[in-house]
């Protein structure tokens, strides 16, 4: 069975028939137009699959599979949005999906790093931060800071830190959060959270699809 997490910037693909193979990551803009999978999630997933699972359900099921604890808060920071599920005693306690006001922050980070040719592995965690509510508004802060003489890497790092603080607040300010999504490999982002962070990588939703496909949990459509 072929699974696909069709994100805004990247699509993650996995074929359950090829046990042991790592998932494939493809820029969504480079996907073949006729690509189809059996089970999909993500913004672009509905048109590519016979069966679609909404992202919050895929996130929750993925968290159950990977974390294997009855209580957890799992935050997914994607290219376009941020969303979280909080489970308590094995049951859903709270959730949120910020697709409008918190929009495009992951996408904006990647855009800025490419534009300014920055290596995220070499960036330092800044002491200051921007109050970031969305990617577009955050960019104005960066440009203003650069004009005021702040080094570009420092300005972008302040933006990244602002996103982490905003995401932490959006998730209800937990002491411990599990993190999902492409920003798991961003050291400044991880270290900017004012709490303990356990990065789970970018295949959490794919794991959720796998859990649903193998009927570890009830199916959805």
């Amino acid at each position, binding site marked *: 069975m072929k699974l696909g997490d069709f994100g805004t910037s990247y699509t993650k693909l996995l074929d359950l028939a090829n046990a042991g193979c790592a998932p494939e990551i493809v820029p969504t803009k480079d996907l073949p137009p006729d690509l189809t999978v059996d089970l999909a999630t993500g913004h672009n997933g509905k048109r590519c699959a016979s069966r679609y699972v909404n992202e919050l*359900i895929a996130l*929750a099921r993925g968290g159950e599979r990977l974390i294997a604890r009855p209580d957890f808060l799992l935050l997914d920071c994607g290219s376009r949005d941020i969303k979280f*599920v909080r489970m308590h005693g094995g*049951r*859903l306690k709270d959730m949120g*999906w910020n*697709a*409008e006001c918190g929009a495009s922050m992951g996408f904006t980070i990647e855009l800025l790093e490419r534009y300014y040719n920055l290596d995220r592995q070499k960036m330092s965690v800044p002491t200051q931060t921007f109050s970031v509510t969305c990617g577009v508004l955050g960019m104005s802060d960066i440009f203003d800071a650069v004009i005021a003489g702040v080094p570009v890497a420092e300005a972008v790092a302040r933006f990244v830190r602002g996103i982490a603080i905003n995401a932490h607040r959006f998730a209800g300010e937990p002491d411990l959060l599990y993190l999902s999504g492409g920003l798991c490999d961003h050291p400044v982002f991880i270290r900017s959270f004012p709490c303990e962070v356990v990065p789970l990588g970018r295949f959490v939703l794919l794991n959720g699809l796998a859990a649903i496909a193998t009927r570890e949990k009830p199916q959805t459509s």
Partner: protein
Amino acid sequence: MAGQQEIPWQRIRKAGIVGVPPRAVIGALNAHGVEIHDLDEPLVRANLATATPFLPTVYCAILRTAVVNALHCQLDAVFIDIGPGKCDAARYTAQILAQQLTIPVITTENTDRERLGNPISESGLPLVEKLQRITAGVRVAEPPADPPPFVAPTASFWGVPPRDFAILELFPATTHVHGWTRCMENKTPADHELEMVVNTEVPTVFFAQSFCAKTALARHLAKRHPHGLYLDVDAHTTASAKAKIQAFLELSGATL
């Protein structure tokens, strides 16, 4: 009841209502054979932006809809409730409409206390049909003669009737109705005690229109509920709002 305004019944054939005017007023409209239009519901194709000269863009979508309807429907009068069962926003909207329209804008204050029951709210009808019946019931003074039978709930919808009923399609038919919609069916829109009633045994979506004062109550009740989800939606249901409801109900085991 209606305030001190004199009502020119002989000139009113077609009236719009906003909110839930008192039963005595609805009864009088029914008795005079007046055609009643519920201005809280989208009745015309005109864009919501046509309300912008009169109300801010960031304002309750229900009241913006009421203004658009009042501007485009050929009405002889508007009855708008501004009592404790409605809100300050409706009070100000009534003032604005009274200055903009050439027809009478009659304000009422519904303080009806006689409870007429909630058979529709506790029935097994699809949630969309439940709310269609409840909102249609505003146009008549008497409760329906053929109440549907009770079903045990697996979920609850708390709140006002949304401007966009699309979110209601996601709920199972075993969803009970609470909040102000329940007060509407009961014909006691100012019954805040009834509005606060929740069922803690089933997953509950606490809904309010964006920019409505009830967002505070909905969020507060959702936080206190053992299994509640707070949700506010403006004029149209977004994909993320639909996904939240779908995920909440599925992960709670309360799906269709």
